[in-house]
């Protein structure tokens, strides 16, 4: 038990993590390319046309995985943030920071594709639906984190302040989601419901899962690549960085 604990902390040192991340990036890039390639093939050629929504429903294969990832990434950020505040490891703050832009991109994509789905299905680009509204607030939370990180020059303070903000956000997300849902049911007349009417076929579910896995691999690859740049920037003065092959060149 004790040996394993030490082992984990060894990887939390930026100097050990940097080369490890470098080895993992190509693996996850390959995984992402393959999974997203298969997912795209399935979403256009294998998944059957929906009898109600025609071809337009194919947006679901990018919309739902993007929405899942945007929420999942925030949870992972909260995990790293908590770890960073408790154990005071430098790497945790860097991981939180490295995940945030990708999470914001997925939140934006979920909103964007949601709008492109809503227009043909419901006739408007935007509906104040509970899920859409919560996703918008999630995007705001990401942007707030990035703005806070960007305006603090001292990296230690930036990491810890950011971590606290992420944790406050993650506690608030259920409250926000619940209140938005309540607000929505109170205000929504007999207009539109989010239910698609059609039951999800097995092929559709698989396609969505494969796309989500592809996005997941993409997130890991991108976050690890970004954390490598962050490590280099922050550890620029150390000996191990100056001895790296890519620096000595």
């Amino acid at each position, binding site marked *: 038990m004790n040996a394993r604990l030490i082992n984990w902390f060894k990887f939390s040192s930026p100097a050990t993590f940097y080369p490890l991340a470098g080895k993992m990036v190509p693996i996850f890039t390959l995984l992402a390319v393959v999974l997203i390639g298969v997912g795209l093939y399935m979403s256009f050629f294998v998944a059957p046309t929906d009898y109600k929504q025609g071809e337009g429903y*194919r947006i679901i294969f990018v919309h739902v995985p993007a929405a899942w990832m945007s929420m999942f990434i925030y949870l992972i950020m909260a995990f790293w943030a908590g770890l960073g505040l408790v154990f005071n490891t430098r790497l945790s703050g860097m991981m939180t920071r490295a995940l945030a832009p990708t999470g914001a991109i997925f939140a934006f994509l979920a909103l964007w594709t949601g709008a*492109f789905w809503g227009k043909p299905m419901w006739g408007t680009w935007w509906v104040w639906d509970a899920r859409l509204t919560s996703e918008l607030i999630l995007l705001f939370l990401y942007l707030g984190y990035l703005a806070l990180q960007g305006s603090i020059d001292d990296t230690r303070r930036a990491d810890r302040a950011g971590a606290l903000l992420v944790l406050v956000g993650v506690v608030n997300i259920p409250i926000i989601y619940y209140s938005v849902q309540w607000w929505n049911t109170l205000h929504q007349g007999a207009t539109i419901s989010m239910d698609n009417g059609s039951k999800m076929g097995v092929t559709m579910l698989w396609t969505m899962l494969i796309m989500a896995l592809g996005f997941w691999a993409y997130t890991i690859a991108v976050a690890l690549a970004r954390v490598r740049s962050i490590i280099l920037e922050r550890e620029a003065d150390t000996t191990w960085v100056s001895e790296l092959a890519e620096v000595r060149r």
Partner: protein
Amino acid sequence: MSVAEFFDMGGYALYVWGSFGVSALLMIIEPIMLRSHRRSVLQRISRIVRMKAEEKV
């Protein structure tokens, strides 16, 4: 199914390609920007390292 039919998406072309296109665009731009950022960071650091090495000599 012909190619034109495929791209028409049963009349939903704008919506389907609008969402898939923008997603693809962002997911391609992000790695490219990361790569260029990494390159500039490496350049900056190796310049500093070289300057330090010259100072020692």
